[in-house]
Every structure is written in C-alpha cells, then in structure tokens.
C-alpha cells in the first residue's frame, strides 16, 4: 500500500516536472516575436526555420521576413524592433534600443539607378536614361526595326 502511494506521488511529481519544464524553456532567450504576419524565419543551429507568434529568441538569432511579411521583435526589457517585408535583424543585447531599431535592414538592395533618382530626380534622366534616349534618337526605325513595313505610303501618279 505504501509502495502504491509512493508510486502515485512519484507520478504526480513527474507530471508536474514535465509541465514546468516547457514553461522554463519558454522563458529562455531575451526576446520574443509579436504580430507575426506572413513568413518569419529564425536562424537556428541547423539553419533557418519558421518562427511563430510568441516564439522566444536567444541572443545572436537572426530574424528574417519574406515578401508581404512583418513581425515585431519584443525584447524582455520592452524594446520593440519592427521588421517590414524582406528585412533582417540580428538580436543583440549590448546596444541601446534606438540602435537596435535602426539595425533592421532590407536584404534586397535597391539598384543604383534608384538611389540616384532619390538623390537627384532631375539628374536621373541625363545620367541614366540618356543611353536609352540615345538609342531612341536613332529614330523610330530603332524601335520599329528594319525591313519593309506592311503599310506603304502611297500617292497617285496623276
């Protein structure tokens, strides 16, 4: 009888331990994901894996979003870093919140022509489009191509 009580007690302890263990595991890390929309990926020991709402994140984890996705990385100290689509962010601890927020960066770099456009809209045409216009200044024949046109300009001989 005593053995049976001991076995039941041991069972309760084991059950309690297994319930507590995930809770403790869930508190590992320094931040968690909030407002997950679309595909959010986290760097793990064996590479990228999907992250979900409230997933805990350890230091040096990289958070990556894909197209039409966004997420907020919420540090335990309250700092929130918002990632828009196609951005990445590495979870670090030794920086002020403003620096962390500024660290979220787009992975897909805009081409040089775009940057030039933003810097000087009026210069874009002369520096970038000019070659295209240069091609076009050869005339419509460049666009229309060589060879006879199906339509011929005609005039009566009379």
């Amino acid at each position, binding site marked *: 009888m005593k053995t049976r009580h001991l076995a039941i007690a041991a069972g309760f302890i084991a059950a309690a331990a297994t319930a507590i263990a995930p809770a403790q595991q869930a508190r590992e890390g320094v931040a968690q994901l909030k407002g997950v929309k679309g*595909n959010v*990926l986290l760097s793990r*020991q*064996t*590479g*990228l*894996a*999907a992250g979900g709402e409230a997933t805990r994140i350890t230091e040096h984890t990289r958070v*990556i979003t*894909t*197209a*039409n996705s966004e997420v907020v990385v919420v540090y335990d100290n309250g700092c929130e870093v918002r990632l828009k689509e*196609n951005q*990445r962010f590495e979870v670090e601890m030794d920086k002020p919140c403003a620096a962390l927020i500024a660290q979220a960066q787009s*992975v*897909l*770099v*805009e*081409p*040089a*022509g*775009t940057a*030039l*456009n933003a810097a000087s809209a009026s210069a*874009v*045409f002369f520096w*970038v*489009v000019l*070659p*295209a*216009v240069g*091609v*076009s*200044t*050869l*005339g*419509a*024949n*460049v*666009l*229309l*191509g*060589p*060879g*006879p*046109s199906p*339509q*011929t*300009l*005609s*005039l*009566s*001989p009379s």
Partner: protein
Amino acid sequence: MNAAALRAGVLAVGLLLAWRIVQVNVVLYDENGQARLPATAATGVNAPSLDRELLHRVLDRNPGHVVALLHLAREHERAGDAQKARQAYDAAYALAPLDRDVLGAVADYYLRLGSNAEAIALLDRLVDAYPDARALAFPVLGKLLLAHAQPAAWSAIAARKAAWIGPFIELSCRQGMDPAALVPLLLPRVADRRAAADEIGCIVDHMRDADRWAEAYQVWLNTLPRERLGDVGFVYNGSFEFASGGVGFDWRLSRARERDSGHVVETPQAAGVTGQRALRVSFNGKRQAGIPVMQYVALEPGRYEMSGLARPQSITAGRGVQWTLRCVKQGQVQPALANSERFVGSSEWRRFSFEVAVPNDCPGQLLQLEPLGLADGTVYLAGTAWFDDLVLRRLR
C-alpha cells in the same frame, strides 16, 4: 548600213521604253497605280526628309493615312514645330492606337520628349500586342526600369499581370541588367505562381555570381512555398523528401544522359532512412563526367559540422566518392574547405560527419558529391551510393 543603224536605234529605243515601263509599273508605282514612297521603317531622325506638301496631298486624299501622319509628325519635329508634331503624332495614335508602327513611333517620340510615363504606357502596349517588337523595345524598357522612371507606371503594368513581364525579366537578366531592379517585377509573379524557373534561376544565379549571396538567398527564400519554409536549414531538403527544383539554393541533380555522365541521380523511396526518400547515385562503371549532385549554401563565417547517412553499395572501380564543401567567389569554385570520408565498397546505412571552418573571405559555398580524382583526370566508377539526412549544424 543605214538600215542596220536604224534597226539598232529602234532596238535601243525599245529597250529604253521597256526599262521605263518596268521602272514605272514595278519600281515607282504599285499594282494600283499608287506611287511607292519610303515605308515607316524609315521614319526616324536619320530618315531622308519627305516633302511636306506631298504628305499633305496624301492626307487630303486619305486623312486616315496614319503612316503619312507619322511622316508628317517626323517632318514637323525635324523642323522644330513641336506643336504640329505633337498634333500629328496624337492624330496617328487616335486613328490607330494598336498599330505596331504607330505605337513604336509615338513611344519613341515621347522618349525624345522625356515623357517617360507616356512612353512606358505605349511600349507596354507595343510589346504586349507585338512579341516580335520585344527584342527592340525591351532594352529601352530596361533602361527606364533601371532609372526608376515612373514607378507608378511600372506598378500598373505589374498589377495588370502583363504577359510580357516574364520574358522581359529573363531577357533583361540574361543581357546583364542589375537583377535587383528586376526583383520587384519578379516577386508578384512568384506570389501568383506565374514565375518561371528560368526567371528565378537567372536572377538568383546572377546575384550569387556577383557575390551578393544574401540578396540571392532572400530572393530564393521568397520563391519557396510556405510549407517549405518551416525548416529551410543550411542544407535545404537534406532528407531528399521533396523533388528538386534545381534552382537557387535547392539541390541540383545532374540531368546529363547516363552515357555522357556515367551516372544516374535519383531520389527514390528507400527503406531504413529518415522520411520516405533518399538520394541514390548509380555509377555505371564507365568514365565519369561532371558532378552528380550539388547545392549552393550560404554559411556565415564560423565552424560547422556536416553530417548525414550513407550506404555505399559495391563501389568498386575508382577511389570512391566524397562530399566536399568549397568556397565560391565571383562565381568561381575554390579549393575544398573540407570533405567527408571516402565512400567505397559496401556497408549498411551508417552515419558520417566532418567539420568545416568557413573563413571570413568565403561569401558563399558549394556542397557537392565528387568522384575522387575527377579534377586530376579520368575517373571510372561502378556501384551505387545512397545518402540521406544531410545536415549542417553550427558549432559554438
């Protein structure tokens, strides 16, 4: 004597008349008695000038003669009469808004004016309706795209899912255009499942060859279906459960004919493996050509352990095969950073592993199964090699 000279003179006059008849009826005038004048293909700036009076006479007879209108517009433009030129171009477009020559000539005119939005809209219609005009118009569109001219116009084209965008992406990419400029056009097509593997592959490959690995990887990630993003891993699809797409950072299985390559690569169902399938490379005992299996990976600098399951079966001829990880810089494969044990002879499934240290100057890598000695000369291999559960794990 006089009679002979007379005959010769008559003959000469006859020939002259015959030549003139041929010239008038075949060369100068068409079968309807209409004079043949230069076609619109010569409407450009460098085209010979046409008499405006002549053009007006044509238009008096037929006010809907759009080619004459284009010529007239060209002449007014040449003379510096911008208002009349515009009126003539607009009239031609109003009369024949889907005519190939009108679309091309008016688009060209707007390009000269710097009215890029109008030009893009016309070029859109031109390449949409006339695929044969794409080779000429795509480079112009490419320059406009690179210049970020009229993003709203491009957004409208992307939104209406124009059929020419796919060929435009592929051709522009192959002609060396900055692939980053093409990504905004590609991603909506990926979302709609309309992007072809060649479009994706070209953009990812060009970025990777330019050592823009992070961008290349990001573009490729965007092309994966949601269900595959659950566990991408450093080695993608290391258990070979999914069919290889052969694009980006997916497995690239040799598609060469067995008689050319000396091997066959498959991912059949197999017993005793992780999941349902495994990689099987069958070597036919003949001379080996090329790498049977490879995958680009994008590892940050650091230490890793590569592991997997292997089962060599009767690998007799040759020195066997091994997995290698090599740096890739500017599209060039470098000497191996590390390699696995050699797989020779026969064994049951067994686990193998090896460590890799990725240096700082190694922007991206190539994981591949190599017949030993392939780089040194002729290699003959027989037997079968099975692999499964390939994983790269970061070591702290």
